């Protein structure tokens, strides 16, 4: 039952979750003395 | 060409009418932002009132060739002698 399509779906979902977690929960750690403009300042 | 007849009451930028010019006199240095001075608002320079917003505030001026706007409260602090 573990077809290629299933594997792709789980990969996509895992990547999406990882991205969102990184974006919204791990952000404060990396934000130190950085000037805004070098990164996206968390816009969006 | 400096008008001495009305110099009994000290005039400020605020007493200018649109189109009128004056020569900047004294002002309290610590009350006038440095930026304004850097734009040419210094004793001896010429100031012209270009346009007034409603309630005479802010004032659109030409000082020493620069176009800028300041508020009435600031304009009141800068003494001038009108040029006719």
């Amino acid at each position, binding site marked *: 039952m573990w*077809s*290629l*399509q*299933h594997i*792709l*779906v789980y990969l*996509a*979902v895992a*990547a*999406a*979750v990882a*991205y*969102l977690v990184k*974006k*919204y929960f791990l*952000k404060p750690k990396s934000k130190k003395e950085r*000037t*805004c*403009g*070098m*990164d*996206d*300042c*968390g*816009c*969006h | 060409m400096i008008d001495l007849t009305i110099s009994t009451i000290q005039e400020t930028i605020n007493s200018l009418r649109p189109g009128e010019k004056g020569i900047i006199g004294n002002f309290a*240095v*610590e*009350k*006038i*932002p*440095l*930026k*304004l*001075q*850097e*734009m*040419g608002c*210094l004793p001896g320079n010429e100031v012209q009132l*270009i*346009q*007034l*917003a*409603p*309630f005479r*505030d*802010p004032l*659109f001026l030409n000082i*020493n*060739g*620069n*176009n*800028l*706007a*300041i*508020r009435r*409260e*600031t304009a009141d602090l800068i003494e001038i002698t009108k040029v006719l």
Partner: protein
Amino acid sequence: MGKQLKVSLIGNPNTGKTSLFNLLTGLNQQVGNYPGITVEKKEGTCRLPGGGKAHILDLPGTYSLNASSADEQLVVESLLRKEQPDFPDLAVVVADVENLKRNLILFTQIKDLKIPAILVINMADQMERRGISLDVELLEKKLNTRVVLMSARKKTGIDELKKQIEDYQQLPVSPCLSVSELDATYFERLQKAFPEEDLYRLWLCVSQDVALKKIDESLLKANEYSERNTPEIKRLQQKETIARYLYINRFLNNAYQVDRTKATDWRSVLDRILTHRIGGYAIFFLIMLLMFQAIYNWSSIPMDFIDQSFAHLSEWTNNHLPEGPFTSLLAEGILPGIGGVVIFVPQIAFLFLFISLLEESGYMSRIVFLMDRLMRRFGLSGKSVVPLISGTACAIPAVMATRNIENWKERMITILVTPFITCSARLPVYLIIIALVIPDQTFVGFNLQGLTLMGLYVLGFGMAVLSAFVLDKIIKNKAHTTFVVEMPAYKVPMAKNVLYTVLEKTKSFVLVAGKIILAISIVLWFLASNGYSDDFYQAEEIVRAQPENTMLSEQEMQTAVASYQLQHSYIGIIGHAIEPVIRPLGYDWKIGIALVTSFAAREVFVGTLATIYSVGSEEEETIKERMSSDVNIRTGKKLFDFPTGISLLLFYAFALQCMSTLAIVKKETNSWKWPFIQLVLMSGFAYLVALGAYQVLT
């Protein structure tokens, strides 16, 4: 080749610094990812005639090295920090030929820092029209530098500048002015306290209104040398300014002449009209009206096209790829998700087009002038208008644009109320709901949908002003500062600058917002196509077994099964859990899910609904059509009817649903207190208003 030559572009605002930057770097530039106006760091590379490359940094515009705002402070700090990576090898000071005298103040300050500097005199093409004659050789001799006459508009002088940049090592670094002459005893004392340091660098640290932070460590202690803002320092600063003007006048009277009779002044005529006490406001209002009508009307054609194309694409994917969960993910999750972003590109591009036209033409300063008195009644400043207008793009750059408001209280209030302004992220939500509930008819010549949109913008602005009025009564002022705004000469906006702004901002919207929306739509699709209960897995049997469904056609049966399955998926379960809270506002569980995901970014609302409405359906139908035919199970009426639509519009108008805004407000106000208050008050208010509206309308 070794390391790249580092060049900083420095200059007064409105001297065409950004045009020069665009000309030097072309598309080899990176700007911070936020949409909005030049606030922060812009970098790029420029190829030099000799084959080398220069790294160009575009610093924010400043009138002098005496910072009165956070933006200007950044410039001063970058020049007092030899240890940092972007300390320039060479400063290119951009001046405007019409205001040369004032521009030279900044130039002499840079020279006094002993940084090699080239003077670029921009807008040289205007010289003849304005009756200006200039003796470049004399200027070069007196200022002890190289002068490049150029026109960023006509693209002249750029090769000459590149050549000069290449030869920067031949530039003399002698200072123009010696500050110790201003007051021998004061500066002797200062030098004695820090014998190692350069006197002018010391004086810059001591005389700033604020303590500098990101500067060389050896200078940091000079920060505490004396109290700030003392009358003594103010007097010395005035003396310095006068001395600089005297220095400049000594040669400029010979080198620079203006024949006023030659100057044809259509610009002062324009100002008499555009800043008129009655006419000026009428024109301003008209321009705004036009802008929003245009955003709405002009973009409807490309938007419909994009909507259709994505519907076709989804259908094609479903029909031509092998059947399986990944194909469904593509057709029902990813494609509608991306489509939900791409569809707003036309509008966002138009919005940034107008904002950048207002900025470039010089009209924005006139708006500041016209609105100052009015805004002050509400505790704001005329300068708050710029953040409030940029807020129509995105609250983040808008909050950052408040940095040039000198008054702390006015700045704080502006930051707090800016999120009420309708940002481009709200636009997608408004557009889809307006399209669903407001009839497409004209009313006294104006499109009703366009008017509704305009009304929402006015509502956001009104709310911002109203809350500013309340805040004005609550917040106490810290320091007294004054208001000075330059009224730059009107210019025909340069196509290249406008184009770059529009491209850059649109690209960053698509990329940054797009990634999040894509990720969320994948997760949503997964949650919507999976469940744990028997209700989910045996949906087909259960629905077929229900007696009331026996009469359904095969097609209707499919739809019934899909909707039953969706209701019992993970997302359905979460949605139903939220439903009691939002039911009084006229929303069902689907809208509830969209509301929750909106907190990542508002525009996700549309993507979320697009995904939810796509799961399980294979027919080619646009999302709008699906949404409009959806029926609220409880009331039996259309889900997106007039009361629900209005309630949703109001909720989105007032609620603070943007984590990024909260983050930037925290950063700019330096406390969690303000963003927290903002979140609770705005969202609470939004709930109550939406509740009130729905209950009254039904």
